[in-house]
């Protein structure tokens, strides 16, 4: 019985809102254009991430693809990061194209703007999914067959939608409360669907790489490719190991000095030492294994935090009121047909903006602070709200009554 590693990497960068104040609202519409040296500068961050993560990681991945015909990976890349690479790091974009050109990299579909639109407007959600599909076709010549929603936010409704939309597979967190006694290491079928299959992240193994890799206090440290293969080989009752993580794990979350690139370089060779071991893209895994059971997920789950829910994005009233106000503008904004206005509205839908407003652990200063360009969640809210009011002011200037 063969076993496959399904390595799936998620690439994303938002358009961060600059230090946009009440003095800018109604006057300037350049919410996303921070000066280069500011913490919120998208250009600077793209340069940094390309240099620390995208370019070195893609170099390693390309070598591995060339050395090992059995090596395969899946990726999702948001529209907002693709645009920023086109503009500020064409060489990084080219390195992604080179990977896909090997024919062994599958691109997974999602919303163009990395939004939570599914939960607020089905029409807007479908528009963003279509935008993303077109962008991927245009840049990579591939049409996504498997879907992932922003932050792996998943429930029965989403699976039902993806099934009807013709996707063969969908990704979700392998959360214990949903799996119950079952293992994430198999292919499943979402409840109330006909054809679609569900791949669930093995968060223990994924987080060993994504979060714990560089932690010297962790019992598993140092993690080598050899040790990792042993863990997987000793897991007998399994067909797939769904290793899902942020692409920026390589070189950004786990620094080069942690040895993460050495781990990546040695993983294929080590894994393929055992007879029957394989790498598969998400589509191949779905084609190769039958669904062993159906999974019923009435409540929304995500891949974030210990709660695995949307509370990091929608856990406080600043977040909820911001997102509700934003989607309240949908009808008047779309009606204007003003493409720049619509695009600015969509960029504000990116989930990261709401994440920056998260107050859950702010007092203790932790991981959330690391990923935020703002000093406090309140500053994030203020910048966002001033930009939101500018959207309204642009509508009012067009004679729209709100």
């Amino acid at each position, binding site marked *: 019985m063969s076993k496959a590693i399904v390595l799936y990497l998620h690439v994303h960068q938002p358009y961060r809102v600059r230090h946009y104040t009440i*003095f800018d609202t109604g006057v300037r519409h350049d919410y996303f254009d921070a000066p280069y040296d500011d913490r919120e500068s998208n250009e600077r961050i793209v340069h940094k991430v390309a240099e620390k993560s995208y370019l070195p990681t893609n170099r390693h991945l390309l070598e591995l693809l060339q050395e090992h015909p059995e090596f395969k990976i899946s990726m999702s890349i948001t529209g907002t990061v693709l645009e920023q690479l086109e503009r500020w790091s064409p060489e990084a974009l080219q390195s992604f194209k080179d990977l896909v050109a090997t024919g062994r990299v599958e691109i997974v579909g999602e919303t163009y703007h990395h939004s939570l639109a599914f939960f607020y407007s089905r029409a807007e959600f479908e528009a963003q999914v279509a935008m993303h599909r077109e962008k991927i076709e245009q840049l990579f010549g591939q049409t996504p067959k498997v879907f992932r929603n922003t932050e792996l936010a998943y429930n029965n409704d989403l699976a039902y939608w993806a099934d009807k939309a013709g996707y063969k597979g969908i990704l979700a967190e392998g959360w214990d409360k949903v799996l119950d006694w079952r293992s994430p290491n198999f292919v499943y079928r979402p409840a109330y669907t006909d054809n679609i299959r569900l791949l669930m992240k093995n968060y223990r193994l994924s987080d060993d790489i994504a979060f714990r890799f560089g932690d010297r206090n962790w019992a598993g440290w140092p993690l080598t490719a050899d040790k990792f293969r042993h863990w997987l080989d000793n897991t007998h009752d399994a067909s797939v190991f769904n290793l899902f993580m942020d692409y920026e794990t390589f070189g950004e979350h786990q620094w080069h000095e942690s040895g993460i690139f050495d781990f990546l370089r040695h993983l294929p060779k080590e894994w393929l030492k055992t007879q029957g071991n394989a790498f598969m893209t998400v589509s191949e895994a779905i084609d190769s294994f039958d669904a062993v059971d159906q999974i019923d997920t009435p409540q929304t789950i995500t891949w974030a935090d210990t709660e695995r829910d949307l509370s990091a994005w929608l856990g406080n009233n600043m977040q909820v*009121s911001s997102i509700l106000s934003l989607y309240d503008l949908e009808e008047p904004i779309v009606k204007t047909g003003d493409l720049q206005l619509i695009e600015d509205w969509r960029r504000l839908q990116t989930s990261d903006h709401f994440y920056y407003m998260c107050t859950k652990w702010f*007092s203790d200063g932790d991981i959330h602070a690391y990923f935020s360009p703002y000093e406090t969640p309140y500053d994030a*809210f203020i910048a966002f*709200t001033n930009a939101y009011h500018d959207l309204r002011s642009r509508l009012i200037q067009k004679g729209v009554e709100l």
Partner: protein
Amino acid sequence: MLGWELPPHNSGGLGIACYQLCKALSKKGADIEFVLPYTADYSSINFMRVNPAHPQDVRAVMQSGIAYDSWKYIKANGEIEYVDLFGQSAMYEEAVGRVVEAGSFDIIHAHDWLTCRAGLRAKMLTGKPLIVHLHSVESDRSGQIGGGNPLVREIEGLALLIADRIIAVSEHTKKAIIREYGIPADKIEVVHNCFDPDNLIPESGDNAYAYLHQLKQEGYRIVASVGRLTVQKGLPNLLHAFREVVAREPKTLLLMVGSGEQRNELIQLSADLGIGQNVVFADFQRGKRYRDAYAIADLFVMPSVSEPFGLVALEAIGYGTPILVSRQSGVAEVINNCLKVDFWDIQQMANQITAVIQNDVLRDELHANSYKEYDRLSWDDSAEKLWHIYSHHSVKVAA
């Protein structure tokens, strides 16, 4: 313990901090004799001995005025003399000299520059370790780096050099001590000031600011500032920022509680800025009117140029109001869930105030989270640190 004031005869945070700190220290077993420079009845305090240090031939020393005015010295022969601040400090030194010769103790703990001369004399006479506890530095009070009264700087600097250990009420103050007097960092320990939520006197009855309460019903929002009207507090910047707020949200009022030498200047400035109708000068207040000022506000602002700690900001949180504080304040080191601004950044101050005025969710979220931090504060933690320092120095002396 050498201190300049205790509540209710206090002009600011210093007296409150001394009172709370001694209370927490006594729970740890500290036997404290608190020596004051004036005469007052403190029989209600049962956790330490409070004694006035009267200079020779002086029967009583009467405080006068709200701040640092001349005091009335009533001599044994019935004569009355008025003495200014430097005179008081010198009289106190002499008096403390006689107190220490009579008593026995292990540690001399002196609060702020006014008690420094006395602290030095006590150390000289007894050889006991001297701990100088600074609640503010002269440059803070003058609102200027390298600034202040040279006589005060001389006393402060000398005491810091000779002290066995220095306590600063914040990292901000520690940095100022290093910057102003070149003291090595490892001689200075930061013991944050605190506020015991249990000590907050609850609100009672209708808010004393009836008119402001009525305006709130009509959709007005209130911004409050509590503190002396003095250059250190950075209030002109707040008025400039507030003009920008009013330009966008006319239904906003600024309530200023306090008095000081800048009062007339600030009234004039608010008129010149065209916001005279939006700024309420409520003068110095105590008791219910003091507490209700915090409670009526939607946002408390402390824009100090340099604020060693800023207890008022914690009181504001206690009374249900979120805070905006300058980065140049000690309280910004202990509360994360607040808005922070550089005291000179008028635009950002206006931006933040406007955001709170326009968004009740921001106001409520800020307060709910800051209250959780506030609720965890305890003077016991500060006393624990001090106790550790006391033990260290007592042992060294014994050995």
